[in-house]
Every structure is written in structure tokens, then in C-alpha cells.
């Protein structure tokens, strides 16, 4: 008997989009070393450059200003390494690949506190900038645990006013809110392929200014010497295909029909057009509040992306709920996947001053391009069953 499987953990990784799978299949068909002069190499090069153009269209920056990496962790480390031994400020709710890299590389660093809704305090940012000359300010666009949107444009303007450059980890923002590097004043931007429906193993770092190419690895001449190592052509091609889909249907992940050439052998399974993500989110959140009127939704009063709901049912253990839901075929997360399996309270929720017991009761639901209303409905039914059991 096959159990229903409902995937509501897009912020951990999104299912591969059919367009990305198709692009990867093509890339894997032949030996493509994009640095080779021969026809095979040129074909690989074309795939990479096409992908770069799709990503360029997504974040509104010239393709030449984008380098591919193995993922967002590498992109963040590469960028922060560039500011080695300088002063760096970062939001208190950054991903560990930013905070840990800063604590490792930067000579002098301070977190920018957030309010109880998880939004950075711009006045404290300004006083931190005034206090000491700062080289870089790093503020994520959308928080991975809560979905809270940060005032990136305002933070970037403050950074520039005080002579600092501005980095934005936009991993959870791509495809969910518009990302125009020029308009927002982002000097460096990090993207990840697998959060937008591309494959794992590819990411990008984009930079607005010439002469500021950050380099971490040394070796061959790939990516204009900025990122040596044979390119992961298939992953980059899939990344590009996913970026193309989301940049053609911004900013939401409504289920537009497949844009790539239809595959003759395996047509992508038909899915009815989705509800808008905002509708799914309110359907979910209203449903949750109806089932348990003491539900707490983190960051509820702040601007949030429509795909993420981080909530707690007081008095429960997220660890247990996660298992109970998994046994019913529902995949959700407690906080971020990277910190699951440890008892440490989420640093994001701690920065938001969330009570520790409530933090340990916190579940994250994140939806995406293939999520249906029926799945949310099924989740709510199973949630009812699972939480009723706790009260017996």
C-alpha cells in the first residue's frame, strides 16, 4: 500500500521542475567540458551561458556579472572571504553559511538585531555603521525559517551612505519577490539552484560592480578565474532552466504550463492550475488557527513571503510532531534542515526573542511550485488527527 506523500518543505529543497530535469537530461547526454574547444565543449559552453542569461534576467544584472558556484554556502563563503580581516555587519537571522563564515573570516563583526517579528532594526544598523568604518553589510532578503522579508533596499542605502558595500543572500527570495539588484542597491547577491526547483549542487554569486570579483578557490581558468574547477554543466543547465521559469512568471510560483519543449517520451504530468500562493497561505493559516486557537505564527505582523509559515503549538514538541507527520506521509520541518537533529534552539527564533519552549514547538511549512490546495487540505486533516492524539 503506497502512502500518500505530501511535500511541504520547499525551503529545505524544492522538487525538480520538469524544465530543469529536461535541461539536465540533455546536458548529461554527452561529455560536456565547457572549456574544451571542440564541438562537445562548445555545446556545454552554450548551456552554461544560456543558464547565465536566464539568471541575469531574474536578478536584472548583466550575465558577465554572475559566477556559478556549487551552491549558496560556497557563494557566501567566497564573498565573505573577500572581506577577510575587515569589519562586517550581518543581520542576527542570517543563514549559518553567512554567520559562520563571517565569524571565521572577518576581523571585526557585529550582528544587526531584529525585532520580535524578525525584521532588522535599521536605526541600530545606522548607529553600528557610524560607530566604526565598515566594509560590508550582509542582510538576507527573505528568512529561511520564518519567510520574513527584510528591508533590503533601505539597509543597502544605509550601507552605501556610510561607505560600506552590501551583500544580500537571496536564496529564499528568488521566485517569491522581485529581485532587481540595481533597483535594490545590492552589490553582491547569492542564489541557490535547488531552492527554485533546479538541482542541488549549483549556485551563483552576482556582483554589481566591476573590479570586485571575489575569489575563494584557486586553479584553472573557469568562470574567468573566479571559480576554478570543471563546471557542473548539467546542474548549471538545470539551474538556468528553473530560473527561466520563475523569471517569466514573477514573482509567484503559480503553475504555468511547462515552457520547455514537450518531451515526447514522458509528457510532464498534468496538474490543474494552482491557487495563488497568498491564497494557499491564508487557507493554511486560517485552517491552523481554527484547529488550535492558541497557534502562534512567527513574524505574522511583518511582511512575509507567501510560501512560508513558521508556527508553534504551545506545549508540544516539534520533534515529535515532525515524526508523527512523517509517519502519515507529510514532510515538514522544524526550523531549518541544517540545524534539525540538534536540540539547540533556532538562532533565528532566539534573535526574535521567542520563548525557548515555543521555539522547540515550532514547525515550518514551506510550499512551492507544485503545491496544491488539496495538499494543504490533507495536511490540515492530518494535523488535526496528530495533535488531537497529544491531548489524550
Amino acid at each position, binding site marked *: 500500500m503506497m502512502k500518500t506523500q505530501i511535500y511541504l518543505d520547499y525551503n529545505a529543497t524544492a522538487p525538480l521542475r520538469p524544465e530543469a530535469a529536461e535541461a539536465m537530461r540533455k546536458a548529461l547526454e554527452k561529455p560536456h567540458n565547457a572549456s574544451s574547444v571542440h564541438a562537445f565543449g562548445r555545446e556545454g559552453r552554450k548551456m552554461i551561458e544560456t543558464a547565465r542569461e536566464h539568471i541575469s534576467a531574474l536578478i536584472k544584472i548583466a550575465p558577465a556579472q554572475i559566477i556559478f558556484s556549487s551552491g549558496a554556502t560556497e557563494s557566501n563563503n567566497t564573498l565573505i572571504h573577500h572581506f577577510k580581516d575587515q569589519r562586517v555587519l550581518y543581520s542576527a537571522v542570517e543563514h549559518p553559511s553567512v554567520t559562520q563564515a563571517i565569524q571565521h573570516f572577518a576581523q571585526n563583526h557585529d550582528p544587526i538585531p531584529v525585532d520580535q517579528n524578525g525584521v532588522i532594526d535599521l536605526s541600530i544598523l545606522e548607529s553600528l555603521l557610524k560607530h566604526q568604518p565598515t566594509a560590508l553589510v550582509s542582510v538576507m532578503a527573505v528568512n529561511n525559517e520564518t519567510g520574513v522579508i527584510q528591508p533590503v533596499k533601505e539597509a543597502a542605502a544605509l550601507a552605501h551612505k556610510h561607505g560600506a558595500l552590501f551583500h544580500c543572500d537571496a536564496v529564499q527570495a528568488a521566485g517569491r519577490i522581485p529581485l532587481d539588484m540595481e533597483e535594490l542597491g545590492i552589490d553582491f547577491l547569492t542564489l541557490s539552484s535547488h531552492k527554485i526547483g533546479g538541482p542541488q549542487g549549483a549556485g551563483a554569486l552576482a556582483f554589481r560592480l566591476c573590479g570586485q570579483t571575489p575569489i575563494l578557490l584557486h586553479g584553472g581558468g573557469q568562470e574567468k578565474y573566479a571559480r576554478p574547477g570543471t563546471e557542473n554543466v548539467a546542474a548549471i543547465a538545470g539551474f538556468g532552466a528553473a530560473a527561466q521559469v520563475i523569471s517569466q512568471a514573477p514573482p509567484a510560483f503559480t503553475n504555468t504550463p511547462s515552457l520547455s519543449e514537450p518531451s515526447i517520451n514522458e509528457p510532464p504530468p498534468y496538474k490543474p492550475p494552482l491557487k495563488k500562493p497568498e491564497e494557499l497561505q491564508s487557507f493554511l493559516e486560517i485552517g491552523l488557527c481554527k484547529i488550535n486557537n492558541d497557534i502562534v505564527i512567527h513574524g505574522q505582523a511583518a511582511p512575509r513571503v507567501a510560501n512560508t509559515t513558521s508556527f508553534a503549538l504551545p506545549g508540544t*514538541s516539534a*520533534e*515529535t510532531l515532525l*515524526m*508523527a507527520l*512523517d*509517519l502519515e506521509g507529510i514532510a515538514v520541518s522544524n526550523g531549518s534542515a541544517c540545524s534539525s*537533529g*540538534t*536540540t539547540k534552539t533556532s538562532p533565528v527564533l532566539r534573535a526574535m526573542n521567542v520563548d525557548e519552549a515555543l521555539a522547540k514547538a515550532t514547525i515550518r511549512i514551506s510550499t512551492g511550485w507544485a503545491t496544491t490546495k488539496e495538499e494543504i487540505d490533507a495536511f490540515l486533516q492530518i494535523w488535526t488527527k*496528530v495533535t488531537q*492524539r*497529544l491531548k489524550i
Partner: protein
Amino acid sequence: MNSLGIDKDPAQTRVVVAMSGGVDSSVTAALLHEQGYDVVGITLQLYDQGASTAKSKTCCAGQDIYDAKKVADERGFPHYVLNYESNFRESVIEDFADSYMRGETPIPCVKCNQSVKFEDLLKTARDLGADCMATGHYIKRDTDKDGRAALYRAHDHGKDQSYFLFATTQEQLDFLRFPLGGWDKARTRDEAKRLGLITADKPDSQDICFVPDGDYAKIVRRIRPEAEKPGDIVHIDGRTVGKHKGIIHYTIGQRKGLGIGGGISENNAPLYVIAIDPENAHVVVGPKEALAKKTILIKDCNWLFDTQTAPPNRPVRVKFRSVMQPIEAALSLDKDQNTAQITLAQAQYGIAAGQAAVCYDEDRILGGGWIIGAQ
């Protein structure tokens, strides 16, 4: 009734199996899964293995969790790892250190069963909608004529783990199952081989899990840095006969390693640790005869029989150490049933506070308590 005594089809019966990563619990889980039960394996991460072992061994850290997961993956049932480090530290490791500081000889495995496995994990199992929780302990469970679960020594008395499970409450016991209780270890290993489990040839664990190198004093020092207070070794006749490095290094009945020269007692008879006095940091020594005690006093008792009708001086058999055969005694419960006295038929040596005294009626476990003293 299915083989776990539940009136449901095995496929509809959810069993949480506490998997340590050893062969016993691996076989328990794999067999129940083979019988068609809805098995959910759970392994507890109890302590930071990297920190408790020498640095060079950190590559081995997490091996037990890996093994349990591998068994679950290969057999095809879900498995989860729960991080109980903070519960374990508070309920077991700190209690272990404090017990040594009180001059006692603790048994952390009982505390772990009592307050981590059969308390927190059991609650999690109930929250997961489980019908029962199974472990790989060698102990037999049966229901008596009133339908309540009763505990019996394992078929293989050599492997019997009843001593470590005396604190299991009736309510916990009703929910627990021990499918290996009727087996001996050889049978378990044969089944592990038949099922192709990677744990089939894994050696039995010998030590206290969080003291893999046997150096418990090191753990006590780490938890309670003030623990190693030097003091005097005092003879029961009042003479100070030597110095010691801290009471945590001594246990009642110990003979070796006292570091006292000869000529203290007549005939140069060997000296034993008779008592430990934490208040004055004294280790009290004396001849073997001084160790002989006839009455054991226990507290924080747990009883698994009808205590209402228990007469004073109920004949029982008792174990006051894990590695001993039960001996003849009589049990008298105090009014509140929380404390009791056990009168031994013959005086015994080496009854140490902090250990458990567990009472039996033939093979049935009546319960027991923590030793507070002996007379």
C-alpha cells in the same frame, strides 16, 4: 490477540522500538517488522560521543546511531534519532556524579531506563500513536490473572536484565514489550544473521555507555570539578591510617588500591572500604567482618505486586548487585511503601548505598528500591 497481546492486526499495530544500535534491539525491531507490525525505530542520542571519548576516537562517534539507521533502512521501516542529550545529562550523568560525591556507588543504567527511556521516550511513543513500545532487554513480561503486566527474569539467567529494570512502573510496564525475554543471546545472534543485520557480530557493550574507557572518575571530575577533595583514610577503630585523593575513587567493599602499608591490623589481615563519609571526606576502612550486614534499607521504592496485602517479613529473594544470584531474605514495607527494609537470611558483604536492592518471588520481579544503608 496478536503476538504483542494487542487485539489488532499486526499491520494496524504501531510499535515503537527503542534501538540502541546493538544486536538485541536491532533483532527486536527487524523481527517485529518481519511479522508485519507497523514498526517505528527510534535511537536516542544521549551524549556527545566526541567529547566523552578520546579525540582519536571521534571517527567512531555516532557508530551506534549509524548502525541502527542502517538496519532500519535495509529492513524498510522508518527510523528517527532523537536528541536527548540535555535530559540525559540532567537525569543521568549529573545524578551519577552527585551520587559518587555522596559516597555512593550509582547505577546510571537504571536511572536512564527510569527517567529517559521509559519516561520521555515512552511519552513520545504514545504521542506518535504507538500501541506499545518494545526494547531488546532480556526480561520476560507476562500478564497475570488480573490482566496486569508482570515481569519475570529472562529465560537466560546469565543475560537477565531485570535488576536494571526494577524501577519500571506498572503503567509503563503495561505499555512495554520485551520480545527477547524468552531467548538466549546465541538465538538472538542467529536471528540477526538470518535477517542479515549488520549488527549481527557486534560485540556486547560492557561499560557504562558514557564512560567508554571505564574512567568514571574523569567524568565525575568534569561534571563536578570540586569532586576530587583529598582526605583521610580512617580505620573503624578511629586511627587515621592514610590519605586519599578523593572519595569518588572508592566504593564499599573495595580492597585493592587503598595505598595503605601493612602493620595496621593484626596478622596483617587485608583492609576493606567499610564506609564512605562524604561530610568529612573520610574513607573508612576495616577488616572484612565489618562489612557484613544483615539488613538493607531502601528508598524510592517501586513495587510490581499487590502491596496492600503484603505481610511484614514477606519471604523474597533479593539482589543488591547486578552480578549476583538472588539470595533468601524477608521484605517489610513501611507504611508509605516508599521505603522498606530487607532482612537477609545470612549476613552479606559489600552492600553499597546507591545500588539497587531488587526483590524476586521465584522468577517474578516484585520490585525494589535504592539502597540508603545497611546494618
